[in-house]
């Protein structure tokens, strides 16, 4: 089920109403049924995968909890890791690796014929797999206690607001919340609904509108160069942010309505002054997952320099691969790893130059840092969005061709008009991006909705209506696209 569907518009109020009507003790049953139903609306059979992961991790954790010896515990941890990562590998990476091995052998005229795995990629598999994996690793490390109630644990794995695209929650944060009685609280419900509304605005108004240009251009690259590629790339930079942070807002908001607090996933990432700051603000639940379960176990930064660089690079490489079985994602991850390593290497010379120019921490310096980080992130997004490496190289090599040529601009206008995007639509899109970033800027001083609570009634309601009517009238409903992160 999609958040931006009519189905969800009915499903959510029904679940919330029932949630507050039934006693706390039985609520997990409702949440489990609702979550499984939510997932099964997409594909019924694949619920089996969630159930398998749930059962294996539940029993593995139970066994680990009973044991004191690390070596014995390790066997159960391996069972959890192998089964979860095995399912993930089978559904997500097998075909990719198989195809590449095949072409490698073809190169040497060696016969190799293992048939492809003809199954759809289960929605959200990377998200719930990582969530449940973090649980077993935490139990192994004695950071959390094994959950005794299978039903509650099953809700933790499949909790519908964050099931298919996160935030990837930690067991010690989310699990205890299922045992707390959440009464109906007007203020909390209101904040939740407001956050959902803002999430919908970002997704259906901004992201879906930008997607028309981005998809039109990136799926027909031969027809475009210069301006169109620049605009499509900038638009994708904001599309992916609005799409994913929009999803996170709806997830966090809908959980909040029922009294659950999910972790913040985005903190105005395009205002970051460095790539390392960007990763503290972008997809926080995933970047902290990789930090805690891969980067630190590898040794983190408390090792010799080359090993530190290696740890960083590997972490981002794996993070890229986590996103999808395509070289484009691997390059995207590798690029970010390279950015971070370069930043460490160049730190001292940069300091010397800044001190020499005496511009350190000036407004100019901050604007430069934000702009430069934005451009680096946008450049990396080219690989993330391109359908393959050849396309990404085409984009990079044609970004600035014919930019000064008016004919190219008018051809772009013609082609965009063909996509149903006139100059007015482009201006509206840029306007919406500015509106969203101003909103983000205002958020810097604290939660916007909390600040708004103390503003005059007319102002509050005007904001609500602007957002609501924006959702109703500015969204391209005939071209609604799926959430980008569903594919991961």
């Amino acid at each position, binding site marked *: 089920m999609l958040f931006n569907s*009519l189905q969800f518009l009915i499903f959510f109020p029904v679940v919330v109403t029932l949630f*507050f009507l039934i006693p706390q003790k039985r609520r997990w049953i409702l949440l489990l049924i609702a979550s499984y139903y939510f997932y099964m609306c997409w594909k019924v059979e694949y619920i089996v995968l969630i159930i398998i992961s749930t059962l294996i991790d539940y029993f593995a954790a139970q066994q680990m909890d009973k044991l004191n010896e690390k070596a014995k515990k390790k066997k159960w941890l391996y069972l959890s890791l192998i089964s979860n990562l095995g399912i993930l590998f089978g559904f997500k990476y097998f075909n990719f690796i198989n195809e590449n091995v095949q072409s490698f052998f073809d190169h040497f005229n060696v016969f190799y014929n293992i048939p492809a795995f003809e199954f759809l990629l289960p929605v959200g598999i990377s998200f719930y797999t990582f969530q449940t994996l973090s649980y077993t690793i935490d139990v192994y490390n004695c950071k959390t206690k094994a959950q005794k109630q299978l039903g509650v644990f099953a809700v933790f794995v499949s909790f519908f607001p964050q099931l298919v695209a996160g935030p990837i929650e930690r067991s010690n944060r989310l699990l205890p919340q299922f045992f707390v009685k959440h009464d*109906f*609280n*007007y203020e909390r*419900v*209101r904040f939740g609904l407001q956050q959902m509304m803002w999430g919908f605005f970002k997704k259906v108004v901004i992201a879906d509108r930008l997607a028309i240009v981005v998809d039109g251009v990136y799926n027909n690259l031969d*027809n475009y160069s210069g301006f169109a590629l620049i605009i499509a790339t900038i638009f994708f930079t904001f599309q992916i942010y609005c799409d994913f942070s929009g999803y996170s807002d709806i997830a966090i908001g809908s959980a909040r309505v029922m009294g659950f607090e999910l972790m913040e996933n985005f903190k105005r990432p395009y205002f970051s002054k460095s790539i390392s700051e960007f990763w503290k603000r972008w997809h926080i639940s995933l970047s902290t997952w990789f930090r805690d379960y891969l980067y630190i176990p590898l040794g983190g930064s408390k090792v010799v320099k080359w090993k530190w660089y290696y740890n960083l690079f590997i972490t981002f490489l794996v993070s890229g691969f986590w996103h999808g079985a395509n070289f484009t994602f691997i390059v995207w991850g590798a690029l970010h790893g390279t950015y971070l390593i370069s930043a460490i290497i160049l730190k001292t010379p940069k300091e010397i130059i800044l001190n020499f120019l005496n511009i350190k921490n000036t407004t100019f310096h901050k604007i430069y840092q934000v702009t430069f980080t934005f451009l680096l992130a946008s450049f990396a997004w080219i690989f993330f969005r391109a359908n393959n490496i050849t396309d990404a190289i085409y984009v990079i090599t044609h970004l600035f061709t014919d930019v000064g040529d008016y*004919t190219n601009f*008018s*051809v772009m206008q*013609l*082609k965009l*008009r*063909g*996509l*149903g995007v006139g100059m007015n639509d482009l201006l509206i899109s840029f306007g919406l991006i500015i509106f969203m970033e101003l909103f983000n800027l205002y958020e810097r001083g604290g939660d916007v909705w909390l600040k708004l609570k103390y503003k005059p009634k007319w102002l509050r*309601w005007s904001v*609500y*209506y602007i957002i*609501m009517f924006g959702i*109703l*009238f*500015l969204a391209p*409903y*005939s*071209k609604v696209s799926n959430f980008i992160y569903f594919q991961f």
Partner: protein
Amino acid sequence: MNTELKILLRKGGVFILPIITWMIIVVIVDPFNYFNFYEAISQQTKKSSQKLNPLLYNSINFKNNPTNSVIIGDSRVRKLPTKRIQELTGDTYYTLHSNGAKLNEIIDLFWLSTKYSKLKNVIIGINFNLYNEYAYSNRTEDVREMINNPLIYIFNYTIAKTVCLSIKNELFGIPIQKKKNRNDFWNYSINTTAKNQYSKYKYPNMMLEKLKKISDYCKEKNINLTLLIVPNHMDFHDQLVKYNLLDEEIQFKEEISSIGRVIDFDYPNSITNCKSCFTDPIHTTDSISMIIVNDLFTDSLVVGKLLQ
């Protein structure tokens, strides 16, 4: 009931009130006769505002009153007199057109019409300027979605504009539109429209295949398919020389003649070199439209040429 829940329901109710009011307004004003519940606004007023989206109006109208015979095309087929066609053939034709329709939209309109009617006769207006990869637009998808989902129709920016315009025109009268100066518009069409259409040309790769699919479908369902190339004034047609596209035009005519019956009026003839036969370089007058129809529906072609 819990006090906090009462607050939420009360405030929520107030919050959605304007939205429900808007829904009621759209259903009552119903500028495109989508719901057909109640006629609060005269059809004439509606007509004045439907210009904001004639494609939607024509599609909904066709869905509400489907016929077995259709003429599909851009604004140039709009003037073909369907009454005269009925006199000649006994069949009721519906003109499913859109201003500035592109070939891919015309093809989409054909498939849309098959959803609502068991077609017998189809005339598709197709001229060379549409046979261009750059002449692409995608408005039919929006129309299809709106027809299928009333909520998309109600909460649509263009519909909102049309509703407001309908209400304004009903309250304050329909503003009289100033007639454009014929010579000025003539020159604009020759200089600007032709430039927009011909200065960037790319062979449309998929179009022939798509037209063939229509042709195959028509053969399978025993539908009479005619492709019609309406006349453009020679001033406009001669722009092809300026933009070096004569060979492409020949290729276009050859290719579409392989699809089915094609009647061509756009070649040097008594209509194309007569300025008074046109309201502007690409739209014929009523009397010429009558001649085209007579040619199309009687066995003897006087001006039109059968392409083979």
